């Protein structure tokens, strides 16, 4: 039996598809779920989820990428359930006050190249105030004390652009004025790397980089593979190269159906793909067969099986996938999105325990 590894050792090897003791485990939750489980007494107020569930990753999101740092968000309209604000990007966004949700894109000052050059681009300087040094330092230390794999977390260019101009203007811009969108990509990528330089020089690098980059809808990516390669991939390659030059593997998250973009992401050099959203059409086992020699995977377990709260259904999902995808040592157990509050605590606990049990390796050659 292989000796038990620390989380840091395990994930470091999983992201490089090297032999490990077992698959990794990590998860994202909707805030409502944690609140409910805390109210029910399963989790103590303020308790670390990493400790509670034995997660292998810890992360911290240290950058503030809003254009105008000094701009105080203005509340334009507020109801019992939602609040509409104008933010430092000049974006008018409506947020739900009662639960977690992506904000509604109501309007943007940036609709084209002129708006970008007037309202956002001049403000995107590598200001130290953009960096949460203390938070990064604290989480990094905590991860080290607990031997967890510590990731810098943040968004890459696709997710940095739509808060500035919204999906519609960004996607129409890709068609009508690709040079404008390329300028946004290049500027935002450069700022991210400048800020990483500052942070990592002062506080030390993390163990890995985790980019959130939602590029898919149900059944389709937002853009064609050709558009991805022309406009977005150069920034992905540049940021991945930056990380690799410093010994850090890169996890790329995307919700939605992004299978047609995976070859381009592999070309850009990513080490792992997360979250592999089944209900959007992603197929973990097929991706493993197609790319498992070059890519590790985090997620891809249909969250709908968890909120069935039926152990037989959860078993069937895990037994169908884990024995296959653990095959190259490159897998971390995670749902295919986030855990909603329909999932009972006991069901989630069972999912983790059963998944890990299936994900153990018996020896060096199994």
């Amino acid at each position, binding site marked *: 039996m292989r000796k038990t590894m620390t989380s840091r050792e395990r994930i470091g090897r999983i992201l490089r598809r090297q032999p490990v003791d077992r698959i990794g485990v990590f998860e994202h939750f909707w805030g409502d779920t944690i609140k409910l489980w805390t109210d029910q007494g399963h989790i103590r107020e303020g308790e670390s989820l990493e400790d509670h569930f034995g997660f292998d990753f810890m992360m911290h999101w240290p950058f503030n990428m809003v254009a105008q740092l000094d701009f105080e968000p203005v509340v334009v309209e507020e109801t019992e359930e939602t609040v509409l604000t104008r933010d430092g990007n000049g974006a008018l966004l409506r947020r739900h006050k009662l639960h977690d*949700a*992506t904000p509604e894109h109501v309007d943007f000052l940036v609709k084209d190249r002129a708006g970008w050059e007037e309202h956002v681009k001049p403000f995107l300087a590598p200001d130290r105030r953009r960096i949460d040094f203390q938070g990064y330092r604290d989480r990094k230390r905590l991860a080290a004390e607990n031997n967890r794999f510590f990731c810098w977390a943040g968004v890459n260019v696709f997710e940095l652009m739509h808060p500035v101009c919204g999906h519609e203007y960004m*996607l129409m811009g890709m*068609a009508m004025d690709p040079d404008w969108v390329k300028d946004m990509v290049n500027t935002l990528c450069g700022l991210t790397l400048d800020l990483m330089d500052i942070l990592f020089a002062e506080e030390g690098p993390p163990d890995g980089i985790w980019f959130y980059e939602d590029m898919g809808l149900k*059944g389709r990516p*937002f853009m064609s593979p050709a558009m991805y390669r022309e406009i977005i991939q150069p920034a992905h390659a540049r940021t991945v190269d930056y990380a690799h030059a410093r010994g850090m593997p890169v996890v790329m998250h995307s919700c939605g159906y992004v299978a*047609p973009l995976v070859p381009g992401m592999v070309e850009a050099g990513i080490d792992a793909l997360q979250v592999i959203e089944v209900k959007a059409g992603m197929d973990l086992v097929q991706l493993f067969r197609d790319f498992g020699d070059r890519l590790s995977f985090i997620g891809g377990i249909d969250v709908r099986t968890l909120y069935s709260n039926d152990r037989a259904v959860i078993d069937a999902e895990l037994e169908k996938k884990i024995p296959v995808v653990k095959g190259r040592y490159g897998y971390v157990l995670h749902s295919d999105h986030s855990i909603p509050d329909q999932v009972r605590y006991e069901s989630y606990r069972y999912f983790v325990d059963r998944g890990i049990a299936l994900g153990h390796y018996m020896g060096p050659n199994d």
Partner: protein
Amino acid sequence: MSELLAQLAVCIERGKVNKASPYPPDLRGQDGAEELTKQALDSGVAPSDILEQGLIIGMGTIGHKFSRNEVFVPDLLMAAKAMSSAMVQLKPFFESGQARHKGTIVIGTVKGDLHDIGKKLVAMVLEGGGWNVIDLNVDVAPEKFVETLKQHPGAALGMSALLTTTMVNMEETVKRVRQEAPSTKIIIGGAPVTDEFRAKIGADAYSPDPQGALDWLNAQVA
């Protein structure tokens, strides 16, 4: 004349809004949907023919390509933009009754959910398919759907949800609509939604993509 309408259909499909538009690059400098619609009207083509033999054909072509993942969201957005530039000119004919929509559909993202891009894409394709779309936007309460359906007798209802946590709100709306506007045809969609869920809540149809929704609606009035 059929050549002009065929050209118009191509402009819609390719997202060629007007002569000044640089997109698509291979049609730069050529007339777009705006100019061709004007030319057709000036030549005496019936607005209903412009709609059915030009605009709907073009949007139908791109909608089917979108369903097959042969084109992507930017292409669909540009097609919708071209369609809008033509529809602006047809608006007076709709108001006077010289042109008619195939029907009316009330759509919105359900209560608690602020996602709108998927629902907007559906709205664009339905409008492009000749339907009058009343878009209630996002975070729409069941009573708002019901109230709007009562104001538009005979309208269909389309609901979207992106989250597993909000799709359950579709069920309440379906119940209310069945009580207060029982003849309403209801179609649902969104990332977590499946045909199994549709059957469970008693909606009439589920579509995984915009063109599927249009094809189903068209079948209801065929």
